[in-house]
Structure formats: C-alpha cells, structure tokens
C-alpha cells in the first residue's frame, strides 16, 4: 500500500501519465501508431538514443552542473565508430563499443577536470567544449561521410532489429537506465551526488569528495554520450560532421521535463528517461492528431515550461506542508 502511495505521489508518475495519454490519443486516432509492428518498434526505438543522453545529463544536473557538450561528443564518437570499421577491417563489434564509450568518457573527463579543478561553472566549460569538440569533428570529418555500406551488417542490425519485438537499442538503453537508477538510489557514491547538488559547500564541509564525484559524473555523462554515438551510427547508418547537432538542449529538456531540478539535488534518471520518451513520442504523435509537425517544437517548449511551473507548485506545497508539520509538533 505504501509503495502504491509513493508511486501515485511521485513526480515521475505525472509525466508517465502524460506519456500514456499521448500514446492512447495517438493510437485511438490511428491504431497503427501502437498496434503495428513498425509503430510499436518506432515507439521504443526513436527515444532510445536521447534516453541515454538524458540519463547522463540527469546525473550531471543532479550535482548542480550541466553538460552542454553531449551533442558534440555524440557526433565525435559516431564518426569514430565509422572510421574504426573502415580503417580496421574485421574489428570486433564489442571493441568498437568499448572504444566509443572510452573515447566519450575521456571527452567527459576533460569537461569534468576543467569544471572540478579549475572551479569554472560547467555551463561555461561545456559551452566551450561544445564548440571545440564539434570543431574537431568537422576538422576530422571534413566533407567525408560514413555510409551504411562502410559498416558490417551485424552492427547495423543492432540499430534496427529486435529481440522479442523489443529493439536491441531500447534493450541497451533500458539496461543503462536500470544500472544508473540503481547506482543513484542505493550506492553511496550515488547518494553523495544528490548531497553535492543540494549544497556543494555543505557537502564539502561534511567531508565528501566533491571534486572526485563531480569528475565521475562528467565521465559518466561523456561515456553515455559515447555509447549513444556508437548506437547513432548503428541506427542511422550515415554519419557526417553534423551528427547530434543541437541534441544537448533536447537532453537538458528531457531531464527538466522529467523533474530533474536544474539547480541540482533532486530528480531521478527514471524521470529523465520518461521525459526523453515523452519528447520524441509527442513529435511522432502530433502529425497523427492533425497538428503539422512544424509545431512540435512549440509543444516541447510549452511542455518544458509546464514541467518547471509544476515543480515549483509542488515544491511550494511541500514546503508549506513541512512548516505545518513543524508547527504541529
């Protein structure tokens, strides 16, 4: 009963409900939105890459930082993936995955080191590396393009094929999500991320290793963006120098919609993941309910603003409740 009560009250439930409503409305309008093999597959497949970015972003935002470079990191690793298949014929697929994750992690490490050691706000650093990484990408790629024919069939299959109707991409994303959710909820290092985000100075006084934890958060975000880059290559088959442009704000948007407070200390990766699902599902649902898809970004904007207004209202209500409880006792 208590579990059920918590579930009803959780911030994530509201956003999940919104997602279900979108799916139901779209399905009533056009049953093939859900009840065709393609529709069901796309429903799960489309948000998977953004989900990975949103999870990484949530981890960073919880520590009261932000990582704007994820789109550029994704672009770099997506191109690296293609290059590896071209330059190293017969390279095993797991090695490519590992290379992408490690490379993304290293790029995240650069962000984290600059933020944690130089004590410069993450917004500034990652805005800088957003440009720098994208510039390196453009310099490296030039007008070159990776095509589907450059990559092995088995690898491309990961991006499109399914296991028991569930796309591989989604399975990978869900595994990462569960692992991140478990880490943040039960592990000491995970809980410390929340403590740092709530009050960095207090966390420092309390003796938490703030520098190290923040560094780890950025490495995780980079590694997840790296993984997302490898999967991007598998999913779309073509990679040019513009892969992942403007994804960073979508990732932040997904996290914010999912109830991750922009000033840290609260929110879950589950919320961010549902936020990512909601963002991209709405995009697909709008044309079906008769709204031209040009308007989708406006809807996303309303959604983000609605979510933060809602969070504000909920926070005020809770604060009032806490004051009442204090006065009563």
């Amino acid at each position, binding site marked *: 009963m208590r579990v059920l009560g918590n579930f009803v009250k959780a911030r994530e439930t509201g956003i999940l409900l919104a997602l279900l409503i979108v799916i139901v409305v779209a399905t009533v309008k056009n049953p093939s939105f859900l009840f065709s093999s393609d529709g069901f597959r796309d429903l799960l497949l489309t948000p998977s890459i953004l989900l990975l970015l949103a999870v990484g972003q949530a981890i960073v935002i919880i520590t009261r930082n*932000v990582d*704007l470079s994820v789109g550029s990191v994704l672009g770099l690793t997506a191109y690296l993936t293609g290059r590896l298949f071209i330059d190293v014929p017969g390279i095993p697929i797991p090695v490519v995955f590992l290379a992408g994750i490690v490379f993304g992690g290293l790029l995240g490490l650069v962000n984290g080191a*600059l933020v944690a050691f*130089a*004590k*410069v*706000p993450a*917004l*500034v*650093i990652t*805005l*800088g*590396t*957003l*440009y*720098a*990484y*994208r*510039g*390196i990408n*453009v*310099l490296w790629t*030039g007008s070159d393009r990776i095509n589907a024919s450059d990559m092995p069939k088995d690898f491309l299959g990961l991006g499109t094929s399914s296991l028991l109707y569930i796309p591989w991409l989604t399975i990978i994303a869900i595994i990462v999500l569960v692992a991140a959710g478990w880490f943040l909820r039960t592990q000491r290092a995970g809980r410390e991320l929340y403590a740092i985000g709530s009050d*960095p*100075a207090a966390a420092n006084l309390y003796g938490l290793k703030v520098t190290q934890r923040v560094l780890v958060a950025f490495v995780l975000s980079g590694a997840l963006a790296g993984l997302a880059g490898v999967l991007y290559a598998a999913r779309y088959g073509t990679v040019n*120098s513009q892969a992942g442009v*403007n994804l960073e*704000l979508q990732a*932040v*948007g997904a996290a*914010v919609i999912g109830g991750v407070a*922009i*000033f840290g200390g609260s929110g879950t990766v589950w919320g961010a993941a549902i936020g990512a699902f909601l963002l991209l599902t709405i995009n697909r649902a709008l044309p079906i309910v008769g709204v*031209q898809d*040009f*308007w*989708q*970004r*406006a*809807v*996303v*904007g*309303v*959604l*983000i*603003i609605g979510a*933060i*207004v809602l969070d*504000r209202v909920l926070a005020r209500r809770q604060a009032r409740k806490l004051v009442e409880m204090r006065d009563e006792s």
Partner: protein
Amino acid sequence: MTTGTTTARTYKDYGQPLWRRILVTREAAVIGALILVIVVASFSVRAFAKPITMTYLFLDIAPILLIALPMTLIIITGEIDLSVASIVGLSSVTLGVLHQGGMPIEVAGAIALVVGLVAGAINGFLITVVGLPSLAVTIGTLALYRGLAVGLLGTKAVTEFTEFWTDLAKSKIPGTAIPSVVILIVVIAIIFAVLLHFTAFGRGIYAIGLSPETARFSGVRVERTKFILFMLSGVVSALAGIYYTLRFGSARGDNATGLELSVIAAVLLGGVSIFGGRGALHGVIAGVLLIGTLASALRLANVTSDVINIITGTLLVASVVITSFLAWLRTKRARPGGKRTETLAAAKS
C-alpha cells in the same frame, strides 16, 4: 562562496594604483588580444587590411553585437537568456509573414519589435513573478519561440522585401567602408553603456549579481530590474531579427538557429562572470570583435571556416580557466602573512 571571493577581490582592487586598476583587468586583456590579432593579421594575412574585410566583419557580427548588449546586463544580474536566437527567428518570421500579407515593412517591423517585447516579457514574468530559474525557463522558451517561428512559416521562406530596406541593411556610411548598421549598434551600445555604468539602475544590476538579498535590502527593486532586462533582451533580439531578415533578404523560421550560444560565448569571453556581479560592456564588445576578427582573418587565410568553432570554444575555456588559475595563484601568494592567517591567529589566541 563565489560571491564572497568576488567582493574580496573588488576591495583589494581599490588598494591598487589607478593605472594598474585600468590596465590589469580582464577587459584590458581582451582588448589587447583584439589589437594583437588585428596587427598580426594585417601583416601576415593577405587582403586582411583591406576596407572590405571590415565591411563584411561588421555585417556578419551585427546581430551578435546587438544581442550581446542586453545579454551582458542579464548575465551580470546572475541570470541568463537562452531564448534570444529563437526571438530573432520569431521576429524574422513575423516581419516576413506580415509583409507578405501586404503590410509595409515599417509597420511589420514595429509589430515584430512588439512581438520581441512580449516574448521577453513572458520570460521576465516566468522568472521574476513565478520565480523560476532563468536557465530552465529560457530553454523552454527557446523551444517555444522557435517552434512558433517554424510553425508559422513551415519550411517556406519569404524573400520579397522592398529593395530600399534590404539595400539599407547592406549599405555603407557614404565615403567609408563602415556599414550603416554600425550607427545603429553604436547608438544602442551607448544607451546600454550609460544604463549599466552611469545610472542607479545599472549599479543595481551589479548589486543583484553580487547578492540578490543584499540588493533587496539596499532598496534595489530586484524583480522589476530583471523584468525590464528580459524585455530589453526581447526587443533588441527582435531588432537583430529584423536586421538579419533584411540583410539576407529572407525570412525563415530557422533563421539564426544556435546564435544564443555564440552570443553567450562572446559575452563570457569579454570578461563577464557567469556568477554575476562582474563585467563591463567594453570588454564584451571587444570579445565579440575578437571572435569576429579571428574568424574573418582565418577565412581570408584559407583556413576552413570550421576552425572558428574550435577557436571560439578554446578561447572561451582558456579565458575562464586562466582567470581562475590567476585568482588561485593570487590567494596562494597572499596566504603567508596574509589577512587569512592573521584572522586565524587572532581567533586562536
């Protein structure tokens, strides 16, 4: 924590002689870098020293230069406005759609400015009245305003504009190589400089950035100040949108996508602290010019235009990291026999 060190530094700065206070500043460093780039490029890059370089330089960076002015004031209060480029797009589409509907450009432009004002007011309302963080709000309105712009015009573009106006946007001041738009920028820059540096309103902006509570108790109307700044940001962005549309003779929903990040990068490079309370307009203007000059010098030197991204990013990161490193060095040097140890000793005894 950060505001504490900033105030401490400000007091310390006043203990320095005047020439040091003027020369050893972040703004002076940016201006120095700008002069260095101009001198080096004039000698080493062929055709850089020609007047036409300057013409295109100003035509290209005019929107960034315009929007950087209100952005500076907003960042000094400790807030941020990510929606500016979307307001550029929205005003561009407003102008295009209304003009296509038969409205003269003067009227359509005025309405576009009003649209910008309203867009800024919505930001201001959500941030100051509802009390939401500006970073989150303007990520939302970034999507919303861009969505409205794209929704109104779709993938179409309006390209029929009165030649008089499109020519004016590209015209030069007679007898010089300086584009006429520079006059507009100078006028607006002077207004903003006076507002920020020579009025009580401007001192209030710094006070808010250093500590909103202190500012409130000192009689600064924090909410009203921020509200006005976001409206100013909306209007100036809309103006930049009108210029952008006329200069390229094309109103599109995706005009100036991503410009917000260039503006913010330039403002931060110009020495404005992202924590608020610190920065000056001359530094910001030098910052915008530095990025623009580097870009045009490199383009003339046949370096692919994409390197500019790397340079913008690296400059931004390097500038903040170096500043923070110097501050760290200063505290390290100040510590032995410095005030901190004295107070510690006093506390112990």
